[in-house]
């Protein structure tokens, strides 16, 4: 188990040993410093995600976005941070102060912890857990918990309602998300995320495009972004679970949301688009970081694209979409692909066969949906015709 074993960390731990530390303590201390560096870099990145998000939305809405402070408005997010830090922290009356303060920390933590298992390049990955995929799900559970804590401790009806609706959506969409993650697990034969990336000599988007689609949809709901951002339904719920938060605590919720989107862009890249794989990675392992970041940014941009293109969906439609379509669909897909995989594994037609199975599966699904829609339409039209006939006589 190597944790960031590279010349820099070797040099640091060597230095620490020469200062009289035991090798094990030096190793742990080096790892601690590495984690500190990684998380600091991620936090700085997060600050610029705010800028990027505002620029992207501005372009989608035919505006300019922040452009006053510094070149292209690049200093704007720093000004925002300073504003958030010096803003007054208000505890609403009757709030449960400890839980109220813990919730934003837990929220941010639930996103930062995801970076522990993200493989950034062949030689640069946090921890290669053999239960990586389930680890993502478990860390997501902490985020759910943070939302409940925020909503409950604020002592506000709207916060509680928003939190409950958001949690209902998050837990519902967790099922198709986990099931769609099980498909790369089956294809790679391991739950370790680095192992999954290594197994993608053909990207899994070719072998399981439908799983990628399910993962994309459920990840959007899991992050609570449009079109699934029920918690921010301003007109009904004001702002969901973080109504009563102000200053830096609100900032943490906001930053966690953006970073969550970015991180999930990274996971889509790692699970379905080959992660750090790309040309010349074998010669220059650090090049993997570049490929990974490019893929992640494309994923992030797609999330933004969806967010600013689609209108918000009503909660009952959303839950219907999940329980009546995505859950049966993803389980059926899992069963079908597992079967095809064990049937075709090792043969020459494996890649082609898997791709065609996906196409056939998607086609059958569309046909079933079309038939149902037709039935529904004829039912509605029949009823309307009956009403019209009744009016005429």
């Amino acid at each position, binding site marked *: 188990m190597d944790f960031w074993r590279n010349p820099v960390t070797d040099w640091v731990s060597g230095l620490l040993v020469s200062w009289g530390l035991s090798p094990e303590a030096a190793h742990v201390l080096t790892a601690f410093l590495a984690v500190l560096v990684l998380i600091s870099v991620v936090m700085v990145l997060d600050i610029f995600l705010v800028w990027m998000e505002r620029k992207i939305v501005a372009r989608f809405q035919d505006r300019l976005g922040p452009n006053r402070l510094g070149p292209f408005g690049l200093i704007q997010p720093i000004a925002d941070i300073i504003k958030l830090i010096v803003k*007054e922290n208000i505890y609403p009356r009757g709030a449960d102060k400890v839980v109220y303060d813990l919730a934003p920390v837990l929220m941010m933590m639930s996103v930062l912890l995801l970076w*522990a298992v993200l493989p950034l390049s062949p030689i640069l990955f946090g921890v290669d857990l053999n239960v990586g995929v389930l680890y993502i799900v478990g860390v997501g559970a902490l985020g759910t918990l943070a939302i409940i804590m925020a909503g409950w401790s604020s002592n*506000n009806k709207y916060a509680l309602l928003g939190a409950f609706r958001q949690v209902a959506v998050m837990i519902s969409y967790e*099922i198709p998300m986990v099931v769609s993650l099980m498909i790369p697990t089956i294809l790679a034969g391991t739950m370790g995320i680095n192992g999954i990336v290594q197994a993608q000599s053909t990207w899994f988007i070719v072998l399981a495009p439908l799983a990628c689609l399910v993962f994309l949809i459920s990840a959007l709901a899991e992050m609570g972004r449009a079109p699934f951002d029920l918690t921010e339904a301003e007109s009904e719920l004001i702002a969901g679970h973080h109504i009563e938060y102000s200053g830096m605590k609100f900032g943490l919720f906001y930053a966690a949301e953006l970073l969550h989107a970015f991180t999930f862009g990274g996971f889509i890249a790692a699970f379905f688009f080959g992660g750090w794989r790309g040309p010349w990675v074998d010669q220059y392992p650090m090049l993997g970081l570049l490929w990974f970041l490019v893929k992640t940014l494309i994923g992030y941009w797609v999330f933004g694209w969806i967010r600013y293109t689609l209108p918000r969906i009503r909660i*009952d439609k959303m839950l219907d979409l999940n*329980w009546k379509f995505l859950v049966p669909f993803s389980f059926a897909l899992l069963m079908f692909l597992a079967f095809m995989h064990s049937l075709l594994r090792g043969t020459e037609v494996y890649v082609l066969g898997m791709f065609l199975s996906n196409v056939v599966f998607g086609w059958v699904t569309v046909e079933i949906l079309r038939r149902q829609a037709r039935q529904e339409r004829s039912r509605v039209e029949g009823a309307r015709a009956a009403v019209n006939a009744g009016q005429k006589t």
Partner: protein
Amino acid sequence: MQNEWIYIGLFLVVGALIPAAAIIVSAVLSPRKSNQIKESTYECGVETVGENWVQFKAQYYIFALVFLVFDVEVVFLFPWAVALNQLGVFVVVEGLIFIGILLAGLIYAWRKGMLEWV
């Protein structure tokens, strides 16, 4: 010392420290001038009526319940998914039976109209 979870522990510590530091710095720097109006519950300017409490409908519980059952099912399925390559077609069929049994429960709840939000 060969346990890789120690690094996850480090992430846990640092991941908690940095947001906590942000909150603490902000608490030190920010002004503290609280008053009755500021502390009051935010309800778009309307006075809060009654307790800050609403009766929830049981539907939330139904969804959480179906989720719980499927979550546990997933826990059983992940080892199956990992071991799939080592074992034969028989294992795949076992997993299919396992999923099929639980999908029957989902279809039951669906047909009885228990998955409707309203």
